């Protein structure tokens, strides 16, 4: 896998729809993306004057018939990407990173809007395989900043994406996280969410010896392990390059 070819070039935008500050985008799918799996990502940047230099890491949702991903509008990079219309091109580097490792059939997804792409990819893959997963989705306070729209509106749109492909889906504010987890009693967890959520989840899983995997995020430059920009600290004292993940054992990272 890690020696597979990586595509680097412009791809035509086939579709782009924005709702509640989230954009779902599809591009032509070049052959290098065949076989890409949940957890893997691409770097995308708008070919527009004034766009940031660096591509933004975004999880791959599916690769056929079209290359599909979705992103929340967060800062300058995603803002200009959101302006790109069908017919224009986007610069793409990928597929990058490694997919989730083998997961239990009944692995529980824990996520929130900030990391929805990576976990939605997993939920969709399992749905297609006829194996719908359960998910816990942590919502934000209504007044949390979420760009132009309200956090509640954005969260509810993202929830609707999971609702279509999950079995049980529990939406809970952060203080209900443990209760929601107790309700399901997971044997294994696949998670990606903001650090506050992850710190509580890590403690919960550790207390109950539940194994799991965490999809990490960090700002990136090269996406392939060359620049050492995308580091996250581990509890061992080491650091890892997120782009060489982005999935790590749930008990490994420091969630500050």
């Amino acid at each position: 896998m890690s020696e597979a070819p990586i595509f680097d070039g412009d791809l035509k935008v086939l579709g782009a729809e924005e709702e509640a500050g989230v954009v779902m985008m599809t591009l032509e799918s070049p052959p290098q993306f065949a076989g890409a799996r949940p957890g893997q990502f691409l770097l995308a940047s708008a070919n527009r004057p004034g766009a940031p230099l660096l591509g933004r890491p975004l999880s791959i949702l599916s690769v056929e018939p079209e290359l599909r991903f979705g992103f929340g509008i967060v800062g300058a990079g995603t803002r200009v990407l959101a302006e790109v219309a069908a017919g224009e091109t986007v610069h793409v580097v990928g597929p990058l990173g490694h997919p989730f490792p083998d997961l239990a059939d009944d692995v529980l997804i824990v996520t929130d809007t900030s990391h929805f792409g990576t976990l939605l990819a997993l939920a969709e893959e399992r749905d297609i395989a006829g194996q719908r997963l359960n998910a816990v989705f942590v919502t934000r306070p209504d007044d949390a900043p979420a760009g132009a729209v309200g956090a509640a509106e954005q969260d509810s749109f993202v929830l609707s994406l999971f609702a279509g492909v999950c079995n049980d889906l529990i939406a809970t504010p952060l203080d209900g996280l443990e209760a929601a987890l107790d309700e399901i009693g997971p044997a294994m967890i696949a998670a990606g969410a903001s650090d506050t959520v992850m710190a509580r989840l890590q403690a919960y899983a550790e207390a109950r010896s539940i194994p799991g995997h965490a999809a990490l995020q960090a700002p990136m430059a090269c996406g392939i392990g060359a620049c050492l920009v995308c580091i996250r600290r581990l509890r061992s004292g080491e650091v890892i390059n997120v782009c060489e993940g982005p999935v790590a054992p749930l008990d490994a990272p420091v969630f500050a």
Partner: protein
Amino acid sequence: MSAVDLSVDIGGLRLKAPVVPASGTFSYAHGRIFPLGRLGALVPKTVMPEPRPGHPAPRLTEEAGGLVNAIGIPSVGTDAFIADVLPRYRDQGAPIVVSASADRVDAFAALVARLSGEGLGAIELNLSCPNLEAGGRAFALDPDETHRAVAACRAATGLPLWCKLSPNAGAPVEVAKAAVAAGGDALIVSNTMLALALDAEGRPRLANRTGGLSGAPVKPVNLRIVDEIASALDVPIIGCGGVASLKDVLDYFAAGASAVAVGTATLSRPSTMIHLIDALADYCLTHGVGVRDLIRRAS
């Protein structure tokens, strides 16, 4: 494209194309994107004698159309580098040029000696590391400290030495002269410019507070330094700083470089070096010139 001879001689090492990676922005993993053998040389991230962690995150931010980085040269150290990293660059069809650095002259020389037996094409001396024997000021800021470091490395190896200068030096030509007088075979002009980037609350964006500015904003400055050095000295120069387009390559050649190193543009578009090599071949063909005709062509 391959019909055009783009080869240049950089301080004793023949490069099949005058485009090489800027250390710290490239790795063997780029071989998944393009054939590494098309590059003039393969230049891994700077290696330091001992393992070291580098700076905490955040390590990079965009500013003024360029990047500001404070990676802090994390390194696996020489042993692990030679055992685990270097093999991944071998047999790719391009010479390996290892970027080496240290914070003391004796350690610098020992590292260079150690690397000498590894079948490299050249050793690049990253002289921008804080020099602990001179109050933490980078070697390349000062002609005497540069001379000391390069001379010690010269004594330690028979390989070509490429000396990477700093645009923060007040007298870059003096530093260049010192590097050449001490036995440097070529100069890389140059590393990043010390810079500060703040967030909306006035706090540094990088954990290390300051960092090094690279990309488009430094090009006019590094181009001027190349021009000054090329007017004063007869030494092969690798232009580095903000190379992203064919025009940038031609500019560095016109100013006196015989090759360019590409960093920021590789981060932003990984295949940039390949596109530049193709575009340069095309330019030479269309204009009926050899690549060496482009060096200081209007001076």
